[in-house]
């Protein structure tokens, strides 16, 4: 702390600072942490981006799709006999098995939730050709309902943490330890994103999704089953959110709370817009960027500025690149 250089704007101003030392000193720690948090943003952001690309809908309830996955993973642990308390020691084989089970459960629940959501809330509106604002309000209503279902079921408190895996340093770069959980999160996110990207760009179904995104009417005329494409889009978004849910719970074991998706959802959507909504690679870029930048911001300006930095970044980028960093894709930009 002797070397700490804190520059205040003016005498008596204690609400903003420029702690360059903290920024530089914590740079790699913040970067690595930010990348792992950003991977989770990116996975959730993909769900927003896909649905937006196909339906032009901000699926506000996607954050609850994610939260359902978090709960699914939590109760998988619980069902396997684990209880809140200190981390248990497991053999590597067992550990992988249990985590895989939780991953499958979370993806299944989130995927199913997303599909049901689409069926119950959005499809009737499409039948009626409702304006997009109406979709948005329905999404908000659905988000309320899903939150409240969890609240009535589990109450307002977060579930007590269950941990199967403690973060242990695996190797060190730039004097900063990289933990097993960080490595798992980033690698798994990358793999899933590559799979999703391949699915969208290389498969028949993916072509259908792109076709509907580009021009729904023409796609339908060309024999693409629009309803099916929409369902699959929601399913893929839900599956990815479910995967994100498990990584999130590994990182934040206290994260199973009915409100737990709200802020993360907004951040993930911000990430999607940052990268260019409808653009899969943009979602990854936006997620990682957001994760890293909000850590830098917090070090530099102080904790109160963490989220402000995230939103200012969003506004500034949209000022200069109104369709995000990589621009709209999936179909093509429709302006």
């Amino acid at each position, binding site marked *: *702390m002797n070397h700490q250089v804190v520059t205040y704007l003016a005498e008596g101003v204690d609400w903003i600072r420029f702690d360059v030392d*903290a920024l530089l*000193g*914590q740079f790699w*720690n*913040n970067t690595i*942490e*930010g990348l792992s*948090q950003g991977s989770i943003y990116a996975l959730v952001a993909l769900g927003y981006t896909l649905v937006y690309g196909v339906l032009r809908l901000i699926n506000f309830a996607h954050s609850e799709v994610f939260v359902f996955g978090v709960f699914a993973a939590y109760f998988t642990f619980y069902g396997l006999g684990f209880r*809140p*308390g*200190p*981390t248990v020691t497991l053999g590597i084989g067992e550990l992988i098995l249990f985590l895989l089970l939780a991953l499958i459960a979370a993806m299944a629940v989130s995927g199913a939730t997303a599909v049901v959501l689409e069926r119950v809330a959005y499809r009737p509106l499409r039948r009626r050709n409702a304006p997009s604002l109406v979709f948005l309000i329905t999404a908000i209503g659905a988000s309320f309902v899903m939150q409240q279902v969890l609240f009535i079921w589990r*109450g*307002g*408190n*977060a579930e*007590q*943490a269950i*941990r199967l895996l*403690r*973060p242990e340093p695996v190797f060190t770069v730039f004097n900063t330890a990289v*933990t097993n959980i960080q490595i798992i999160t980033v690698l798994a996110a990358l793999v899933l994103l590559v799979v999703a990207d391949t699915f969208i760009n290389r498969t028949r179904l993916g072509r259908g999704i792109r076709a509907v995104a580009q021009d729904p009417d023409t796609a339908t005329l060309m024999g693409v089953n629009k309803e099916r494409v929409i369902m699959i889009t929601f399913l893929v978004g839900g599956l990815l959110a479910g995967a994100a849910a498990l990584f999130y719970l590994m*990182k*934040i*074991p*206290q*994260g199973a709370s009915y*409100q*737990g998706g*709200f*802020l993360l959802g907004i951040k993930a959507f911000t990430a999607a817009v940052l990268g260019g909504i409808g653009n899969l690679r943009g979602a990854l870029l936006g997620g990682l960027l957001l994760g890293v930048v909000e*850590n830098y911001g*917090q*070090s530099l300006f*102080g*904790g*109160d500025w*963490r*989220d402000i930095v995230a939103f200012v970044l969003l506004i500034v980028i949209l000022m200069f690149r109104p369709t995000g960093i990589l621009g709209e894709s999936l179909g093509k930009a429709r302006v």
Partner: protein
Amino acid sequence: MLAAATSLVLGACAARTDTASGGDTAGTGNASAPDKPADAADPRGDGTAKCSGAAIAYAGTINGANAALGLNILYGVQLAVNQHNEANKDCQVELKQFDTEGTPDRATGVVPQVVNDSAILGVVGLPFSGESKATGDVFNQAGLVTITPSATNPELTTHGWKTFFRALGNDAVQGPAAAKFLTDNLKATKVCVIKDDSEYGTGLANAVVQALGDKASCQESVKTKQTDFAAVVGKVQSENPDAIFYAGYYQEAAPFAQQLFDKGVQAKFVAPDGVKDEEFVKGAGDAAPNSFFTCPCVPADAFTDFTNGYKQLANREPGTYSPEGYDAATILLKGIDKGITDRAGMLDFVRNYDGQGLTKRFKWDANGELTQTPVWSYKVDGGKIVKNVEIG
């Protein structure tokens, strides 16, 4: 033991200099918790009270964001009323509940209803400082006595409200006591003080920082509902403090403590009453054993009658502020048993009240602050929060 009879107009300095407490010698050893004082007020009384149509109210969060804290209090109040009504067949007091959701704007709509209900002679609440601030005037104008079991902002007693009473020590008491615990008992010379964005957290953090002086070597802030503390943890790690004081609630404290632990930060984790909850111990997992708490509340271990009754009623262990809620309700019930039938009488009764409760001796000064406010430290042992030493 309870030498900290500080004058509590703004007792920050007094509390620091005045505490010739016996706990000093104890290090982190076990001090004996006060047994349930033999003369502690019992809501049952002698079972001969007569009254009719009397009611007391709980006003505070029931379903709002921090509902857990509100429910702790509500069940404490409910227990006192139940015990009273079972013992006194001729005096059935009704408990009316009002949900403020813990926010000032709901509270301003709800409180006039409390005031307008003439059956209500006294109120336990409001739990939070913000809502207390917004509605104190309304209670004052109506002459309806309120005993808050948990609002600790020192400013609340400076508005000249004649009806406002506080059933625990305020931040100006706990802050210096916590600082003393950090420096004397834990022998910390470098302390990182972290606060959340709640009024409680910021107020308490300021009091602690002030009392620590230059031993508060770093300060950071976090947000309510934040779950990822990487940047703050990194900052703390680079400071390498002996101890960390976290001013806030357990929802954020649990993941924060755990993330510190995961990064290998060895510093002792000290947190106030807002964190002292079983939920924290469960939530913080591996980090819990390294944690200490400060609280202007007396250990409830020995209150077996209370604890058993509470468990039966609420189906869980008493939480933070449950005994305070119980004590506050008991005082109001005593008043009703005395035959008080109007608010002026109740106000007078509470103002002149002097009696032992479960948690402490209840006697208020002219501003509505307690004249005695014990502060205790607690630690985690075997997955449970147990008493440590008295610190002020």
